[in-house]
């Protein structure tokens, strides 16, 4: 059963430009969360006293400290809800519901050598995933994209190897993370016999996921994507965040919807329609 209740903000720091890391004391979420899962958070009064905003905000768990009973969120201010959340002082409480949804490794079924692709707040679940994979002794390479050098997180934030790509070329590869991935994979042949093919995990804007799905499919790599969709309840009830399921498991003419919040947010790339 997911936790629902108050939890205290114990630390805050700037993670990258326009992105705040918030540490929250909540042993239930810290113990139970898996990389790719999310929590619903509310840093303003309940809907009975104010409905401004009405709904909680869904945010990926960016890491846990099971010993301390804390978990981390990365918040980029994009509107009123995230602004209120980012401005909660240390020591104050917020409401937390979670963990919710299906994580990366549950979707993939097994852990192994992995390539993580993402940028912006998409880094939140990947940061957690990189920690869990490296702790499990798996090789991890993270490809981190940003518009420019200033928007990149400082080195050392992600466990394992990291390569960066910037749109303006001010740091690392000049281009998108998907282009970087393509360039790397054409140079390195993973299926040479001794090196097992890596699994690609990604989280970021839908156009990036779409491009990644196309190129990774071409290269024959298994790809798992964490999707973002507008949500109301975040717990599976409202059917608001449904996306269309596709792929070989579907019968001809069969139309089936899956909920980003419940069956997802992580799906095999070939299993969901990103073009709707």
């Amino acid at each position, binding site marked *: *059963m*997911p936790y*629902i*209740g*108050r939890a205290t903000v114990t630390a805050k720091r700037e993670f990258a430009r326009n992105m705040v890391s918030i540490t929250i004391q909540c042993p239930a979420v810290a113990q139970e969360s898996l990389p790719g899962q999310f929590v619903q958070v*509310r840093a303003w*009064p*309940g*809907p*009975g*006293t104010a*409905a*401004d*905003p*009405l*709904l*909680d905000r869904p945010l990926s768990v960016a890491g846990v400290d099971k010993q301390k009973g804390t978990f981390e969120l990365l918040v980029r201010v994009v509107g009123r809800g995230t602004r209120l959340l980012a401005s909660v002082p240390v020591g104050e409480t917020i*409401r937390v*519901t979670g963990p919710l949804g299906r994580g990366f490794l549950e979707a993939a079924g097994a852990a192994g050598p992995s390539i993580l692709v993402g940028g912006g707040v998409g880094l939140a679940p990947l940061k957690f995933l990189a920690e869990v994979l490296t702790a499990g002794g798996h090789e991890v390479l993270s490809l981190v994209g940003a518009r420019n050098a200033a928007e990149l997180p400082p080195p050392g934030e992600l466990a394992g190897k990291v390569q960066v790509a910037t749109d303006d070329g001010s740091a690392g590869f000049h281009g998108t993370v998907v282009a970087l991935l393509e360039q790397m994979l054409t140079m390195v042949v993973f299926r040479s016999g001794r090196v097992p093919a890596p699994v690609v995990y990604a989280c970021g804007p839908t156009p990036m996921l779409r491009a990644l799905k196309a190129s990774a499919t071409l290269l024959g790599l298994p790809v798992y994507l964490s999707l973002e*969709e*507008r*949500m*109301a*309840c*975040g*717990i*599976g*009830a*409202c*059917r*608001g*965040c*449904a*996306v*269309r399921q596709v792929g070989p498991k579907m019968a001809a003419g069969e*139309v*089936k*919807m899956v909920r980003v919040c*419940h069956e997802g947010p992580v799906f095999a790339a070939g299993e969901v329609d990103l073009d*709707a």
Partner: protein
Amino acid sequence: MPEMTSSVAAFVGGDGERSPALTLPAGVDLTAKLGRLTLKNPVTVASGTFGYGHEFHRFYDISQLGAVMVKGTTLHPRAGNKPPRVVETPAGMLNAIGLQNPGVDEVIRTELPWLVSVGATAIVNIAGHSVDEYGEIARRLDSVPGVAAIEINISCPNVDQGGMAFGVHCPSAAAVVSGVRRATKLPIITKLTPNVTDIGEVARAVVDAGSDMLSLINTLVGMVIDIERRRPVLGNTVGGLSGPAVRPVALKMVWDVARQVKVPIIGLGGIVTAPDAIQFLLAGASAVSIGTANFADPLAPLDVIEGIAAYLAAHGHRGVAEIVGAANPGFLGSRP
């Protein structure tokens, strides 16, 4: 709104800080009698906001609710509308889900037995493309164990055919209700749309056609435009507005309808707290539904049940019926 009655001020919930079990005062009977439908308390959950109950049963025992109005159920499975399907608005939200559901046969096969197994009172909300289809769904549900009543959805604004198209005209609304009436002996609730000139007229028409009770209101049609992309946010262009923003409108409509029909009314529209719900009871609703509030606080219905009980106890009432319509001089329904 004037100062909240002190006896219920403590029951304004929504902060997720409560036990999943109910604490009720002694000496108050919360039973809600809606004609031949008896509910253990007057707090139900609105169709479309509760799925088939699984998601909320993870947080609390849903058999504690007066009833669960299940997701709008159609004859055949429906995938629903393309995304985005929801968007937040001031003190509310728009949805255009489009009646995504597995179809009545699957609901009968899996969802209703599950609801029975957990002890929930299930009311099945049905939607069709034609009068015959509404009748057929009702016929299939008629002898299914665990169906306490049928709620006819002639008010969904998010489907091309059927739905609200039936509910905005008296003859078509009455025709659907008559068709369902012929198909089932189950109590019939007709859920009314607010997107009409005179909701009282539609209410009278469906009662004359055999509806045992009414529920109101469904959502108000609305839209949001993304000014950068210069197109509507919702994949369906328009959606249904719900949440606290619609509450005063809903309350007024319950008030009006309660002066025009004698049948029991289930009031809904933006109810989050017990004080909200009590306003609907005082206006003439015999029971209420919690809808969008479930999304913002999964435990909201429990706060409402407890708050109603506390209000009744504080004012010396032994039962819910004693306050139904108590603020409405023109209330036509019966009260002990």
